[in-house]
């Protein structure tokens, strides 16, 4: 049997994998996650499903939780599902992506007897402990990310092959739409009952060889969350200062299909004001965690991460466990597989 020519077989294989080495699944629920702003080929679609379990215990503090709730002197557990859709594209001749998040789940709250009066729901009595829960859809969000510097448009496999980034800078704008479940008589809700948004400046530095199995990056994303007024928070007006957030990741490939990341998330600001009066203190939470990401097929990545607060306000204990499935495809690559597989 004649041999095939290795010099022409390998390109075909690598051209396939090159399409997918940089797909990512963005998450707007808590943080963006490691390698969230890595670039994919124009036309790549990414669908992601993730489950998040959040636990928070707070004493004499106001805290910031997944969907921007505040609930002082309370223990909370949230089980959240996030379905995301993202599309890599080229906008203004820059690599860009548009993503949409649909969030649903439930939140259970155990409030302590010392809950301040502004936070006591109408059917509860101040000075007594109570439990409350909420479930359903939360506010969906949409985000547009555009690269400002460091990456050329990735329209083709050729562009991907030539892609060896070092510094990259993006700009991202996210908008939350207040159509999630909201009950004005509840302290906990899935929806926020107000518009909110985020401006982010994702910056990353790729070091080492930009080749599967050797890719490393340091990623830092300063961002600010801005909230509209909630005019019906237990019958009161709730306003919040901007929330300043700094997210950082140090990522490293272990093998061509397996990477890990050390994760840092710090949030501050978000001073609450109810009916014109400041309530509590600024948020001051620093979480540290890790992520493991396994690419099980050309299309599918499985990711898990854990983080917990390790600095900032000492009165808070929180943890976040996440399991995520990310599926990505590009029509040409799928067609290539069909052709390669024969009939």
């Amino acid at each position, binding site marked *: 049997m004649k041999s*095939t020519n290795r010099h022409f077989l*390998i390109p075909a294989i690598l051209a396939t994998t090159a399409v997918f080495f940089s797909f990512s699944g963005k998450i707007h629920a808590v943080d963006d996650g490691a390698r969230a702003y890595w670039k994919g080929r124009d036309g790549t679609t990414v669908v992601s499903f993730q489950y998040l379990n959040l636990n928070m215990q707070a004493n004499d503090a106001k805290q910031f939780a997944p969907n921007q709730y505040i609930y002082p002197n309370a223990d909370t557990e949230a089980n959240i599902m996030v379905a995301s859709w993202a599309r890599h594209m080229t906008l203004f001749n820059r690599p860009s992506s548009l993503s949409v998040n649909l969030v649903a789940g439930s939140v259970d709250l155990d409030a302590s007897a010392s809950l301040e009066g502004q936070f006591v729901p109408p059917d509860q009595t101040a000075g007594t402990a109570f439990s409350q829960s909420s479930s359903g859809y939360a506010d969906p969000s949409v985000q547009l990310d555009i690269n400002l510097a460091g990456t050329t448009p990735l*329209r083709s*496999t*050729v562009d991907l*092959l030539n892609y060896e980034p070092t510094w990259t800078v993006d700009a991202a704008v996210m908008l939350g739409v207040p159509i999630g479940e909201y009950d004005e008589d509840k302290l906990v809700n899935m929806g926020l009952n107000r518009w909110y948004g985020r401006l982010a400046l994702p910056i990353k530095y790729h070091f080492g060889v*930009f080749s599967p*199995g*050797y890719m490393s990056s340091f990623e830092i994303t300063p961002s600010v969350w801005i909230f509209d007024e909630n005019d019906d928070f237990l019958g009161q007006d709730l306003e919040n200062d901007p929330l300043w957030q700094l997210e950082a990741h140090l990522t490293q490939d272990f093998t*061509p299909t397996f990477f890990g990341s050390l994760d840092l998330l710090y949030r501050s600001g978000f001073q609450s004001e109810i009916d014109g009066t400041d309530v509590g203190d600024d948020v001051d939470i620093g979480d540290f965690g890790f992520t493991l990401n396994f690419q099980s097929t050309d299309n599918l990545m499985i990711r898990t991460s854990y983080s917990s607060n390790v600095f900032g306000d000492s009165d808070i204990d929180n943890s976040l466990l996440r399991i995520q499935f990310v599926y990505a495809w590009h029509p040409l690559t799928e067609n290539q597989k069909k052709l390669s597989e024969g009939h």
Partner: protein
Amino acid sequence: MVNKSFPLVITTMLVLSLTIGAMQVNAQTQSRPNILLIVADDLGYSDLGSYGGEIRTPVLDTLAQQGMRYTDFYVSPTCSVTRSMLMSGTDNHVAGLGNMGELNAPNQIGKPGYEGVLNKRVASVAELLQDNGYHTYMAGKWHLGLKPGQIPHARGFERDFSTLVGGGSHFDDGWNLEWQMPKMPYTEDGRPVKKLPKDFYSTKAYTDKTIQFIEEGRKDNKPFFAYLAYTAPHGPLHLPDDWLRRYKNRYDEGWDGIRQQRLARMQDLGIVDKDANAADRLSFLPRSTALVPAARVMQGRKMELYAGMVEYMDDQIGRVFEYLKEIGEYDNTIVIFISDNGAEGNDLRAMVAGRPGTMGFLHGMNNFAENGHNSLGRKGTYAEYGPAWAQVSMVPFRIYKGWVSEGGIRSPLIISGPGVKGAGELNKKAMLHVMDIAPTVLELAGIQHPDNYKGREIEPMQGKSWVGMLAGETQSPRTADDWLGWELFGNRAIRQGDWKITWLYEPLGTEDWQLFNLVEDPGEQQDLSNELPDKRQKLIALWNEYVKTNGVIIGARSPFEQAGKQLPTRVPEYDNYPPVRGLEALPYEKLLELMGGGSEDKE
């Protein structure tokens, strides 16, 4: 009674003799040039700018302007075989490399001329120079013996920094191509090198050592013979990080376009005649425009690395020249630059790594398994640029390294230095051979090749000195009746004047004698055996003489004996078949556009 004037007489005689001795040394020094012999490893015929290549080689191009270039310089199809002739001045079948030591056939093992090392039937040019007042230095690839009596230090080089084997990593990890000896053995001044420095890169290290040896030896004003035997651009294609992207995207257009451009430049330079017949692309290679852009980029990346290695070598040669100018020795140095064989188009990595389950494969797993597009060229990878680019490097010739067709045995040759007439000229008349270099060097140094060396009889040199040619007295050291012969791996060839016969294994040959006119047909495309049977027969008779004279034994085994089964099949779309019709006749970019948007967003 002792004469009181005796001590004075003795002293006077001593002073006089020392003075005369010193004058003789000075006279010898002034009359005998330094010799710098630079050998590239697997460099193609058309790679240098002065031979039509697009690779930036300003140092060697300047050297060519200062000296002479030659179009018809021949080497052997592989490296150790060439090196045996380079060192001995005689045929490889005499000097011990009748076959590569690694590939000796069962019926060749133990036979005279098939020792697999530079044997003791010859004296190396370094031995003769060392014994006659020259400093002898070597840095680079030896490949002529591993044992203590066979290494450079034992064969005439007073200083050396050498790798003893055929190839391997260019970095400090130093893995060898042969799994049987996983690390490349290096020697320095005859002693094994235990560990290479962390920042080791072969081409730079050999350059550094050459400069160091010359510097440390210049106190006594003796001339030097420096053999700078680079291992570039032999695979694996490795480069320092800051050189990896020096030719980024330069070769994305594919091999056909680059080959045509080179050929046109070679014609402009006069290296190839305008109406000369270039070899076809090998039948198993697709035309580059049949490849999608991404595949061309991936193939082009390998050529980028190759070009980077060639330019890096040129840059390092420039360092040696600058140093020689600094110490005032450049104008007294004859520089000879050659390649050791044709460009490498064989799948050496596959040959080295073997198949899964073999030791070779384990060797590959341990040392060069990385093949990511952006990893290529770095430590832990084994890139080679393949047959299509090798054909570019050997345009207009047929096939590449390993074969005795012109693509395996033609090499660039540049000579410059004191006494070399015809600066910047191109000599197309001389039929030259690598075994001519030793007699040339010896004549330049004023040394007679002896019949005996250290008590043993040695073979005469078969090469012919170029000194008369370099001085402009003749156009060639050979007459029209002189001829050259080759045999390696069972493939055979004879050239006499414009004519050449070859016997090559199928499918690249016919396993029968073919006859070519190299002036009209340097690509060896038109077999004239039927038209000129007498000419063919005359050359076959010379082949028989070659076998007899040199003790050639055709191997019972050959790496090419199953070439027909190992090489890929003919590609379905070749240049003229099926006939080009309709859209296929359009420019490539236009065709892509019509297929739906062009290369930018579709591939």
